[in-house]
């Protein structure tokens, strides 16, 4: 079953923070986060494993609450380059990812 992302879209000014949430109805082994710019392929950002630590990548970090089957992506002091559509992918077993519908993030100057 497809995970649900929220919000569907967000507009920020440079330097502002944002949180994107991903929620699943299934028990999860891992959660993946990807970013896709218009007309390009999705790009892997980070993966959070069950029982693992919160991950970080420059000013982008994420958490994974296994009990609630939720993950959140945190974008701090956003930059213009952060614009794009963010997808979570949830993995229940066997390496198959089910992706959320995406969150469109626009960062304005």
């Amino acid at each position, binding site marked *: 079953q497809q995970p649900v992302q929220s919000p569907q879209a967000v507009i920020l000014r440079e330097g502002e923070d944002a949180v994107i949430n991903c929620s699943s109805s299934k028990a999860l082994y*891992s959660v993946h986060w990807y970013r896709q710019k218009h007309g390009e*392929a999705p790009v892997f950002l980070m*993966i959070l494993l069950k029982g693992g630590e919160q991950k970080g990548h420059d000013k982008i970090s994420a958490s994974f609450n296994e009990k609630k089957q939720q993950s959140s992506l945190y974008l701090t002091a956003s930059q213009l380059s952060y614009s794009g559509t963010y997808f979570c992918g949830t993995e229940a077993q066997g*390496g*198959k*990812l089910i992706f*959320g*519908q995406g969150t469109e993030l626009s960062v304005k100057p």
Partner: protein
Amino acid sequence: DAGITQSPRHKVTETGTPVTLRCHQTENHRYMYWYRQDPGHGLRLIHYSYGVKDTDKGEVSDGYSVSRSKTEDFLLTLESATSSQTSVYFCAITPRILTDSYEQYFGPGTRLTVT
């Protein structure tokens, strides 16, 4: 760069014709995937492969078949294209170098239009 290419990059075809899309990788990765992407639906898995001649269905496999006769190539075939198969198709691989989890790296995509 995960060394993934897709061909063709763009294709327009007519309803009822067969179409084959090719995904080629240069790193001998075992796991390969085909997704389609449509507005409002995100990425949906069509078929995947976990080795030569080993394939399995994803969530939207109806109307599609796949073949993998060599590690480096994963082919997606639309037996008789329909307008509902107009989409952007992405191939992906999983390196599984350091972990047991399946982070994926995507090819550049193929834009298919069925008229």
